[in-house]
């Protein structure tokens, strides 16, 4: 077990010089001036924004491929009760998917490499900078995640305290999304080359099973996107802008959580509830 100090230093070890060269002396001298706190590292920011159009292209071209076999649309319902097909014609028409299978495949199988490369670089980056510590769920993740959700739904007054950039629900969600990205890639290859990569395809339970997993992961991405946008809108511009600049201004008279506050010990949630309410300016994105 490392001490909190060394772990913090390790976390920051891989960061860029630009982020390191700030001058804290000025901060200490002028107590009325606000600080801005590092929330997202440079690599995370770039790869997040590069991933956004890539994943959009992958989903859009993927829907063209899915749409090609209209007899094989996945229906939603229970037993004999058929509710609707994914997706209703109005959705497909709005996206202009019809009869563009060849283009869908061409985009999907070319841009898929860019998506894979960006994802692989991000995985290496989180390992190299130890950013993964800021992302993986921590002790008490289930209780705290539920607490965050209850707070976001206005069913609980205070959000559970957290360290680093992300609260427990964010850590859980982002981790699931990243693992989903890996699995969408793996099931994608299993569908793409079911003969050459037959071992991979059978590991997912066969061609049809791999297709189904690939499809539902995509639905998961779309659901995540909707919630993500709502939460970003809720958290305000300062939070959104920190994904561009890397930094978020602290609220006046308070302090914001930062990557720097990451220790190996989770915060005691009971103690956190009793602490200064100004420290609860946390964003749930």
């Amino acid at each position, binding site marked *: 077990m490392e001490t909190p100090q060394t772990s913090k230093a390790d976390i920051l070890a891989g960061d860029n010089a630009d982020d390191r060269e700030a001058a804290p002396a000025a901060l200490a001298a002028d107590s009325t001036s606000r600080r*801005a706190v590092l929330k997202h590292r440079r690599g995370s920011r770039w790869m997040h924004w590069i991933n956004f*159009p890539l994943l959009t292209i992958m989903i859009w071209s993927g829907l063209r491929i899915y749409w090609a076999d209209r007899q094989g649309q996945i229906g939603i319902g229970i037993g004999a009760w058929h509710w609707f097909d994914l997706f209703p014609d109005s959705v497909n028409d709005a996206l202009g998917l019809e009869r563009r299978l060849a*283009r869908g495949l061409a985009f999907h199988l070319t841009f898929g490499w860019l998506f894979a490369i960006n994802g692989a670089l991000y995985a290496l980056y989180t390992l190299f900078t130890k950013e993964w510590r800021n992302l993986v769920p921590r002790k008490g993740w289930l209780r705290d995640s539920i607490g965050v959700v209850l707070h976001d739904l206005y069913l609980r007054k205070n959000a559970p305290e957290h360290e680093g950039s992300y609260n427990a629900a964010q850590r859980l969600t982002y981790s699931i999304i990243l693992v989903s990205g890996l699995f969408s890639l793996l099931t994608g290859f299993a569908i793409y*080359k079911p003969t050459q990569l*037959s071992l991979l*395809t059978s590991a997912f339970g066969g061609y049809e099973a791999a297709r189904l997993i690939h499809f539902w992961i995509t639905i998961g991405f779309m659901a995540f996107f909707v919630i993500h946008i709502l939460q970003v809108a809720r958290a305000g511009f300062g939070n959104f802008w920190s994904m561009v600049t890397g930094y978020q201004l602290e609220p006046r008279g308070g302090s914001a959580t930062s990557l720097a506050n990451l*220790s190996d010990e989770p915060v005691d949630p009971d103690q956190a509830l009793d602490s200064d309410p100004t420290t609860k300016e946390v964003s749930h994105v």
Partner: protein
Amino acid sequence: MSDSSKPDSSKSFADTEFITEEQFKGRSRRSFLLGGAASLAGFAGWRWVQGQPTDNRIPQVLRDGHEFNEELWSKLFREDHLAPTYPKSESSILRVNGRHGIRNEIDMSVWRLRVLGPDGEEWGTHTLDDILALERNEMTIEHKCIEGWSQITTWGGALFSDFAALYDVKQDDFTYVSLRTPTRDQYVDRDEDDRDYYVSVDTPSMFHAQTLLAYDMLGGRLDQAHGAPLRLATPLKYGIKHIKGIGSIQFTDELPDDYWGERGYSWYAHL
């Protein structure tokens, strides 16, 4: 929150975590300009892809993507790797999806399978009996359509490699095999709307141990809709390559025509 949230110059790592409001404003301006430029560059890149001249009906850069993939996966091709096979009990009569070249009945009294050399010279002709005389192979495989559906079915027929052996042709002798539907005079009342169908396949795939000149499905002789009298069947390729009603087979080193390859799909269409 612990004390570590306060700036502490004694901990050098803490320096990276906080910047002044002034610094933040400068950074904010730079980020706005850089982010804006990056967004514009991304949008311009997207327009560039969309505006590319097309190569066989898709933007050139995406055709290059297909060719990159073809290069990669043909290098990873292993002759001795077999596609999974299934119990015959799981197989069923294949869904009929495409009708190009098979709208009209082939006139079996005049149909001959023609074999052509690289310059189009005729090497020989065959009746179906010649193919039936070769060793019959049966395989139960999962057929996959490029549109997404799949179905397990059982094919019976001659290995293409056995057929090629009649002409002493080996896998490395040629790069491609071109297969086409019969000439118009070999149909019964050929409908003018019916199109010729033609595919070309790399020789390593054609000479694979699971590539058949198929004449039966689930033990029953093929009907017109499924490609009588002879069709291609292989788990290495999407159904678009499984030409029905073969009229001619040509060995060549020059990339031959390919019906769907010309219509925006990957020529390789490999599984």
